[in-house]
């Protein structure tokens, strides 16, 4: 077979926020960098992020600092996070945001001309630097426009199908290009995975076609471990009507700006279900909640801004118990706030206000839903949004257990524990992306060259082409749809042992069907073929999620078990699930204790908990 060959010191796979930031850093360290991505540059999923980047800049509330951000992140993650990553993240996020400004980002401003910050679920203070509700676009464009002048070689519309290894060390990757379907061998001394999420394992998702768990699976196949795979974040508010837009995100910013959730009886149900650990920080009534939205430092947050896992479950409950909206969700409306504010501030123009604060939401509902959010309530419901679990990496270097293989961004894991706070992903991409780039460059300088063995290359290419040679049996689209339906039904927001055991069985059958997938046509830009290849990754991560969810017999953060509806901290509050591939190809799993937390960090958490430590940490 014919292969194009490109050689770099470092290959970064993925050009979202994490990959771009890593590439910039590695390149700044003086090594040669190749950046590979499935789409065009600037189109990665990061572009869709809306609400903002979390960083304790303390521009809006000067009581904020990294320790509070750290404590918020740990509480959001229910204390099974990697505390060291959470610490580095909270400490360095402000510098990473400021750096974006130096590279040309133009954030919304405070009245005194600083970077403005907004409220978001689970963050004690207004902490999210943002640009209206298109922060992801600002982030990716800034990194892109900065990066293109730094000598990084970009390879667009190429999909990596396998990592290459030389005696256990990573040595490159094999990719096909969409245009011609030809193969490229990327040779490298270090590889950084920044491939994003897994949303396409589910039927209803806010994620794009790219999010098929490639980074997760490439690492797994190469011998790396996974951590926390049971924790899949279902965002409480996705669009649910019309059907063609089902799953598209309605940013948390809507609630951050005063949006209120109601059931079909008009009841603001979130006030009826506030977890004890959040009671002291939640508003007693509507007035206080709205004052918080306006920035009153003495007011507490409205209950709509509780963590995502909790709000999502409340919505599911309302719908299941027959109090939902016509299409199986609940209502999210801006009118109550506007009316209240209008009374306080004569001359307040609701329509103008919302168009300025939430321009792309206004646009999205107007164009796609035929609805004016300044006048009518939206219908919303949970959507698969973010993967907390992924490649297990060292907290200070982002290297996996495979030498030379690094991971960052959504496909890496640890920082978020059982649930990610909104805004913590974009900051994670920047902080840990930079770290990955820095340490990959160091690794390259300290290690000799490696080989890309021909037999591995041939084998991977043959595997990728197999669907063309098979007799017509299974349609890859159909197999993918069936997988998505099954994961949605059996391993979704509310989980049960027997359903998940059925899912494991279903996965075996789907694997067998995937092995019989056939594609017609040629290798040029053939989405049917690409889907057949993606199936391998989707099936692997689906199995990982299911097995980890079965093993964690408790409800914590994003994992809700109907058969174990409460936390069981004694057994599961101080451990992570770890998964890896055995020599015979089967998936292995174990529980591993979390390293003890240093006193300084415990103090930071206690300071936010009225002097008390949560059970997980005592």
């Amino acid at each position, binding site marked *: 077979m014919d292969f194009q060959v490109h050689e770099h010191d470092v290959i970064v796979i993925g050009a979202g926020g994490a990959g771009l930031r890593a590439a910039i850093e590695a390149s700044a360290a003086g090594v040669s960098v190749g950046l590979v991505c499935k*789409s*065009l*540059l*600037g*189109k*990665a*999923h990061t*572009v*869709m992020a809306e609400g903002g980047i979390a960083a304790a800049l303390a521009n809006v509330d000067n009581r904020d600092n990294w320790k509070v951000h750290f404590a918020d992140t740990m509480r959001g993650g229910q204390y099974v996070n990697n505390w060291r990553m959470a610490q580095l993240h909270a400490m360095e996020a402000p510098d990473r945001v*400021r*750096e974006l400004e*130096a*590279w*040309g980002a*133009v*954030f*919304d*401003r405070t*009245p*005194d*001309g*600083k*970077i403005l910050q907004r409220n978001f679920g689970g963050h004690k203070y207004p902490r999210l630097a943002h*640009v*209206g509700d*298109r922060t992801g*676009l*600002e982030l990716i464009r800034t990194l892109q*426009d*900065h990066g*293109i*002048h730094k000598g990084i070689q*970009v390879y667009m519309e190429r999909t990596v199908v396998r990592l290459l290894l030389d005696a256990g060390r990573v040595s490159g990757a094999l990719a096909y290009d969409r*245009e011609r379907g030809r193969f490229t061998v990327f040779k490298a001394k270090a590889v950084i995975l920044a491939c994003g999420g897994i949303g396409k394992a589910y039927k209803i998702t806010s994620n*794009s*076609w790219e999010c098929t768990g490639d980074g997760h699976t490439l690492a797994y196949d190469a011998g790396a471990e996974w951590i926390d795979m049971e924790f899949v974040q279902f965002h409480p508010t996705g669009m649910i*009507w*019309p*059907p*063609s*837009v089902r799953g*598209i*995100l309605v940013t948390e910013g809507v609630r951050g700006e005063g949006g209120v959730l109601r059931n079909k009886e008009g009841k603001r149900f979130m006030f009826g279900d506030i977890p004890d650990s959040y009671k002291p920080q939640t508003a007693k009534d509507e007035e206080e909640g709205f004052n918080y939205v306006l920035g009153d430092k003495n007011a507490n947050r409205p209950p709509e801004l509780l963590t995502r896992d909790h709000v999502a479950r409340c919505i599911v409950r309302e719908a299941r118990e027959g109090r939902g909206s016509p299409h199986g969700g609940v209502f999210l409306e801006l009118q109550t706030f506007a009316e209240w504010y209008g009374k306080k501030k004569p001359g307040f123009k609701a329509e103008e206000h919302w168009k300025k604060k939430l321009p*792309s939401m206004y*646009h*999205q509902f107007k*164009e*796609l839903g*035929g609805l004016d959010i300044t006048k009518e309530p939206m219908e919303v419901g949970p959507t698969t949004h973010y993967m907390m679990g992924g490649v297990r990496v060292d907290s200070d270097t982002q290297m996996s257990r495979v030498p030379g293989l690094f991971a960052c961004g959504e496909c890496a894991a640890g920082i978020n524990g059982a649930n990610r706070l909104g805004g913590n992903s974009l900051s994670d991409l920047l902080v840990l992306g930079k770290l990955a780039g820095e340490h990959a460059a160091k690794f390259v300088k300290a290690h000799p060259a490696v080989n890309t063995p021909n037999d591995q290359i041939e084998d991977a290419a043959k595997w990728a082409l197999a669907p063309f040679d098979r007799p017509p049996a299974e*349609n890859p*689209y159909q197999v993918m749809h069936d997988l998505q339906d099954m994961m949605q039904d059996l391993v979704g927001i509310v989980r049960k042992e027997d359903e998940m055991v059925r899912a494991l069985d279903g996965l075996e059958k789907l694997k067998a069907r995937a092995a019989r997938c056939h*594609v*017609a*046509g040629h290798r*040029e*830009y*053939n*989405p*049917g*073929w690409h889907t057949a290849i993606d199936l391998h990754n989707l099936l692997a991560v689906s199995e990982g999620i299911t097995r980890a969810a079965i093993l964690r017999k408790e409800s914590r953060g994003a994992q809700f078990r109907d058969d174990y509806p409460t936390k069981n901290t004694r057994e599961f509050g101080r451990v992570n699930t770890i998964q890896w591939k055995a020599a015979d190809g089967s998936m292995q799993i174990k529980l591993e204790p979390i390293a003890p937390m240093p006193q300084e960090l415990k103090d930071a958490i206690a300071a936010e908990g009225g002097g008390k430590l949560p059970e997980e940490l005592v």
Partner: protein
Amino acid sequence: MGQVTLKVWRGNSESGQFQEYTAEAGEGMVVLDAVHQVQATQAPDLACRWNCKAGKCGSCSAEINGKPRLMCMTRLDDLPPGEVITVEPMRTFPLMKDLVTDVGWNYEVKKQIAPFAPRKADHRDGTWKMHQDDADRVQEFRKCIECYLCQDVCHVLRDHHKHDQFVGPRFLVHLAQVEMNPLDTGDRIADTKNKHGIGYCNITKCCTNVCPEGITITDNAIIPLKERVVDEHYDPVMMLLRLVLPKKKSGQRSAVSGQETHG
């Protein structure tokens, strides 16, 4: 809603033709949904680009009934009922396959534009003071999703193929964005005229009319840039335009000397 008939361009760089497909139209469906349906049921090798399906990434650009639009933001029920819908690739760029074009030229053009170069930070923590009013102007340009629909429609590129002399409206917006950033110290005005070919634009406003982000490309980006150029160089279109444009009100920030806002 019943069925819709789509005429989709199928072909590659050498040859191609329209092919008819029917799709089942459901409530709220957009053209991209119909294309996906065709892909899943009738033509698995039909090539098209998309990512976000929400008008945010600028991947799914095409010409729908002859008009440059995003497929994911064009609702079937907004098109004339009962009529065949034509979907074809952007014609200004070389065709790769079906609805996918080679937009690589745009990436090369951007590299030629001098990057943002901020003045020394105002504060010790490396940050600057910038007011929302100043941010507003730049933020309009930074909304660009790089769909290249404006490039597709601009006659200088589409009909006159001046790709090597004219950067096109997208990159005039990009230039305006860096030039008008109050923190920037670079000077790209000579380049804007000589290298980036702003003189080719004769302000037809076709680009503004197709921009899905509603950026007022011509009035807010191109004309102020032309004004800056004309201060330093000769631009015949701008000379004429100056005769007919209303004089600036006093007190209004001058686009020509954006420097004022730097303080």
